């Protein structure tokens, strides 16, 4: 009797949470829907001087691509070292936990760090390059963690098979493990890009100038992104952009983020199935 009562309560709680989430999603789409009409090829592909969002879109792509290009090799090799090479000691565990905790650090702190270290100390100024490096710092823990996770899904018996054939540790990693976890590495890249896709705080003082006009010509030029452009128009200079355009901008950003996250989940699901023999 009592069990059934608890059962019902649990079901009600679960149902309520689900309904709330569904409502939130509908609400979000409703709020963003005025922007739907704005999203036309001419809006997406014309300059900000003509009421478009070309520069922020291209800037966002630049920033993502550069950050990913920096973080992919570093993150992969860090994870390979942690899982395949590092001795199973207290220090290794400590470093591993620290990397995990780094993922939870608020992005504004990364922004401040990037500003003081990359922009000032290294003299890179407010630039695309500073933005890349700051983004890479933020992406690193996610990248390392997701590659570590896929490396651990490779059964020990596979490593043994390779070693028993006379392969060295590095040959095993290079020719057996890494090709097998390649989809997982891709997932890691997409996941870490998803982490920074909505990022504003970290690039606020490291990579963006609103006053900059046109696309960056070198890596030392500042860059404009969707998030920053939206932030400027909502907070700093309200009224300069009309409402539908603002919502169009938000919707574009929303879709970029959702696409990245879905891609990551699809890749991950595909990869998890592979080892089930």
């Amino acid at each position: 009797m009592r069990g059934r009562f608890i059962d019902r309560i649990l079901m009600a709680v679960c149902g309520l949470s689900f309904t709330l989430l569904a409502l939130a999603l509908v609400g979000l789409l409703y709020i963003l829907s005025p922007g739907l009409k704005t999203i036309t090829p001419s809006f997406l592909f014309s300059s900000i001087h003509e009421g478009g969002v070309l520069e922020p879109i291209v800037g966002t792509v630049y920033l993502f691509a550069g950050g990913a290009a920096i973080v992919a090799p570093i993150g992969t090799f860090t994870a390979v070292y942690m899982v395949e090479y590092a001795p199973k000691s207290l220090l290794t565990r400590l470093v591993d936990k620290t990397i995990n905790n780094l993922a939870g650090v608020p992005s504004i702190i990364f922004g401040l760090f990037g500003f003081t270290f990359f922009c000032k100390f290294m003299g890179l100024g407010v630039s695309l390059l500073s933005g890349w490096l700051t983004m890479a710092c933020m992406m690193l823990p996610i990248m390392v963690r997701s590659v570590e996770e896929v490396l651990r899904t490779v059964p020990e018996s596979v490593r043994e098979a390779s070693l028993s054939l006379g392969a060295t540790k590095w040959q095993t990693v290079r020719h057996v493990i890494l090709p097998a976890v390649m989809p997982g590495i891709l997932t890691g890249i997409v996941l870490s890009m998803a982490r920074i896709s909505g990022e504003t705080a970290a690039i606020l003082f490291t990579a963006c100038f609103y006053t900059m006009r046109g696309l960056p010509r070198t890596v030392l030029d500042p860059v404009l992104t969707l998030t920053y452009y939206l932030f400027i128009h909502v907070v700093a200079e309200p009224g300069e952009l009309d409402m539908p355009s603002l919502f169009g901008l938000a919707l574009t950003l929303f879709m970029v983020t959702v696409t990245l996250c879905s891609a990551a989940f699809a890749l991950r699901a595909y990869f998890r199935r592979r080892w089930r023999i």
Partner: protein
Amino acid sequence: MKFKMETIDLNVWYGRKHVLKDVCFKVPEKKVTAVIGPSGCGKSTLLRCLNRMIEVVNDAKVKGKVLLDGRNIYDSNVDAVEVRKKVGMVFQKPNPLPKSIFENVAFGLKIRGIRGAELVRRVEEALRDAGLWRDVKDRLTESAFKLSVGQQQRLCIARTIAVRPEVILMDEPCSALDPITSAKIEELIKKLSDKYTIVVVTHNMQQARRISDYTAFLYMGRLIEWNSTEELFEQPQKELTKSYLKGRFG
């Protein structure tokens, strides 16, 4: 009789657990040697010592000597990778590499620098010797995981013999297989003993009797008896061996 491998006072610990105790074991050249004993007696551990795969296990500590052609493979100037190039291994559970059927066999050859036509020839030869060629010749690019378990084990044998090791170690190679497939693998082991020195760990006494020329009986980490298979089964010298063979414990 020439001994290909020999262990002298071999002791192994996993952490504090003493799993092999003063084992002196001999492996005659180009014969099949079986290692029998109840589970947990240290059979697999002994086997792993023979190609230094024991070092992959966490916390394992080895003391004593293991000679391959009279040379201690645990000497500080001997590279474990070189040892494993000479002493191949087939595992209990088939463990194909996450690659195509062809690449599974080619991998060991490639890391030895074999390329091109020679590579293709050697892969085919190995698959033929393992009795798998007819089954897979039209699907070499398919994933090895698509094969049946028995075929996977043959593939593992094929990739081991492709690199022409001097010794092949087999850790209960039939335990994951059905009786008919096991019989085929047993036949294969017998055939391979013309060319290779083979050590087979098995908990199946009948199997040891069918396929091996020599048998060692291991119990609680000690080598109780070692003799030609016929003599060990017909006239065991030790009481323990007698009762084990009669099935009094196991």
